[in-house]
């Protein structure tokens, strides 16, 4: 068989590979034909930059690959490249993400559809490599789309969806894909890699149109504005974020049509909820021990379900509240903290309670659980302990609104 035909066949065929979540994101960058990538090492995000580096070195990927002198420059460079019309990729972890904060703040305000990967990592101090979600959550109010994935396959697919949605002219907002450090970034799993043809069909070229910085389109970006302008500018971002839900649903429907893989409700995934008395909630890879725990508890006759939040921004409050109203009690497991917040709960718990408050339907009690900080495992017994407390609440028995799980005490 002629080499050209072989290459064509490869391009047209899905393959299966044993790769990590980081590698899956790198492969998505290759398939999306990203133009400019900036990197600065910090664990666990650095795995993705290594994999992209390898793709470039092997001649499999053609892009500008720039190693910046720090995260702030790293994010600034792609911000500017993206303003010039380049498809970009960037990422970081923990305090590296925080060091880029100024750049992260201005990116949504300028309507830059940057796609970034956050390898979730505990914020210093103490210096720790393990997962916590507080790093990515720091941008939750700024206009970033935030999504948590729980498998390498979902990481790859979500990266393609993120480009499609972010670069939609109706949106033009950045998107951060959160991957739990170690559990996802460093664990290899079997991943279906779609063909280039299918990706091309799914993902149009990035067209910045009238907002493109180019000598032929002279514009000033980010001038000083006083109180006569800021509120209108914020309102525009509000409108863009409001439109994400619609564009996201379109993208997931198209994804299913082209790749033949359906994610159901894009915003959150339900597991064993049809007949459930109580449900647990969480984001990211803690879904595995929770699902296993649920299967175990179901053998004991306990009808427990699980709702995994995928998209945190935008937050599908009405849908979620309607769904949660079916249960007797809800237990939210946060892999983050929010010291001094209402009832001292984690961020997700607080958001879920807020979503429930204005819901027209029933409002079951919502308990918050802080678990798995700094990369500590959330174990099946932990999950059973959480479910036990939620059952107590379902039966009307008093329970602390925030509980720490898996803590030495």
């Amino acid at each position, binding site marked *: 068989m002629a080499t050209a035909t072989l290459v064509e066949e490869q391009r047209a065929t899905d393959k299966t590979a044993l790769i990590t979540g980081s590698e899956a994101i790198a492969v998505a960058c290759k398939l999306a034909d990203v133009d400019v990538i900036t990197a600065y090492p910090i664990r666990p995000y650095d795995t993705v930059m290594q994999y992209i580096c390898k793709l470039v070195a092997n001649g499999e990927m053609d892009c500008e690959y720039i190693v910046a002198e720090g995260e702030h420059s790293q994010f600034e460079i792609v911000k500017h490249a993206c303003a010039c019309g380049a498809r970009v990729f960037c990422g970081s972890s923990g305090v590296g993400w925080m060091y880029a904060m100024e750049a992260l703040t201005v990116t949504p*305000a*300028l*309507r830059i559809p940057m796609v970034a990967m956050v390898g979730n990592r505990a914020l210093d101090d103490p210096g720790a490599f393990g997962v916590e979600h507080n790093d990515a959550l720091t941008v939750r109010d700024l206009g970033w789309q935030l999504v948590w994935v729980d498998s390498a396959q979902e990481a790859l697919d979500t990266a393609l969806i993120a480009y499609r949605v972010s670069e939609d002219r109706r949106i*033009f907002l950045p998107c951060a894909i959160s991957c739990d450090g170690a559990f996802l970034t460093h664990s290899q799993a079997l991943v279906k890699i779609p063909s280039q043809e299918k990706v091309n069909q799914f993902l149009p070229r990035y067209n910045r149109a*009238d*907002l493109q910085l180019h000598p032929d389109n*002279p*514009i*000033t*970006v*980010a*001038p000083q*504005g*006083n*109180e*006569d*302008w800021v*509120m*209108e*500018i914020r*309102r*525009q971002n509000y*409108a*863009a974020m409001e439109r994400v839900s619609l564009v996201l649903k379109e993208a997931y429907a198209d994804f299913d049509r082209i790749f033949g893989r359906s994610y159901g409700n894009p915003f959150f995934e339900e597991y064993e909820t049809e007949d459930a008395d109580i449900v647990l909630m969480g984001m990211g890879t803690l879904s595995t021990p929770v699902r296993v725990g649920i299967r175990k508890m179901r053998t004991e006759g306990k009808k427990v379900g699980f709702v995994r939040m995928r998209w945190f921004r935008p937050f599908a409050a009405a849908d979620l509240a309607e769904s949660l109203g079916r249960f007797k009690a809800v237990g939210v497991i946060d892999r983050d903290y929010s010291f001094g917040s209402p009832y001292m709960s984690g961020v997700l718990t607080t958001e879920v309670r807020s979503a429930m408050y204005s819901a027209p339907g029933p409002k079951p009690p919502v308990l918050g659980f802080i678990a798995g900080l700094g990369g500590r495992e959330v174990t099946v017994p932990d999950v059973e302990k959480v479910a036990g407390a939620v059952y107590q609440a379902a039966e009307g028995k008093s329970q602390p609104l925030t509980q720490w799980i898996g803590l030495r005490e």
Partner: protein
Amino acid sequence: MGRLYAIEVIYRGIFQKTLATRITRSIVLAAHEEGKQGISFGRYGDSPERNGIPAKGFAIVGDDQKTLEEGMAKYEPKDVDVTIAVDDTLCKGVESWAWYGLQPVNKLLKPGGTLLVTSRQQPEAILQMAHRKETPYDLAIVKGTVSFSGLWVYKDDHTDVRILGAIAKILPGLFSLKSVQKIIVDQWNDPVKAESAARAYERISSVTVQPGQGNPEVPYKFNLPKWHEMGEGIAIPSIPAGTTMEDPATHATGGFRPDRNPTFKKYTTRTMRPVVNFDTCIKCTLCWLQCPDSCFDVTPEGLYDANMQACCGCGVCEAVCPVKECVTMVNETEFEDNASQWEAWRKDKAGYEAWLADKIKSRPERSHGFRYRGQYEEQIPEMLQVAREK
């Protein structure tokens, strides 16, 4: 509810920033001597670090804390008892930033309020500049050379205390001369300044301005776009490069006039403006090259015409021009319009020559900042002398 007083000070960025603050602070302190409550603040949206840009400071005073709070509910007062223009050229209007439009100096005055101006001009000259207002108000002039100083220094020529003395007369309910003299001595420990306040108190007089009086020009203004009418991404299309100019006499075209920001004109940013002798210009390009605001249009024959839409009156052109009296800075009060000098010259050279000679007589006594060490010390006695003249 007690009585509420609102006073604004319109001043020029950098040169009068400290002066304005001293006035608004002292108003609050003097009123507090009499048991009143007050606040003093600069309008936060201003950028008083821009040369000559019109900016505002306010003093709000109430008979008691509750009354004061009524006045603090709106950050920028919507009407004031007294508007103080510490530079008479500000009477041409206020253009503080893009899209602000040209706002008349007396815009916020309540019916019967007072416009207090520091000037060596007569009321008639002030009313040629200040726009007409629908309700009558009083015009009072604190006679004196307009007080300008630099970014880091303050020129203590008693303008502050003379204005304070005048306010004691204009608004006797706000504070007495005695109270203001006390806080002057408390703050600056200078009995001579307290005397200056008393002298201004005795001499200040005002005339009533009727609705028909004043500059008939209709000030330009803008409607700010709604949020969904604005472009996204905080991106502003550039201003087109520019066009050629047309000779009004021959209709020949050539040269270059850059297009300028249509929403931010600098008509009122100047305290002085350059006038150009086109007959002696050697076309050396220095004014055009050095102007920080690119205000010079290039005429078809290669002369340079200062465009008043863009000129901030800094005087760099005069300083760099190598030809004697080819570019001369003239007091802004001498001009009634912003028309092109070059066009006037092209239409009537003899007439322009006479006009130019007349204008050059009014070289400004003011200076932006100081040019040599000790300049203020030399100027202050003369300024105090002017202040003492009847």
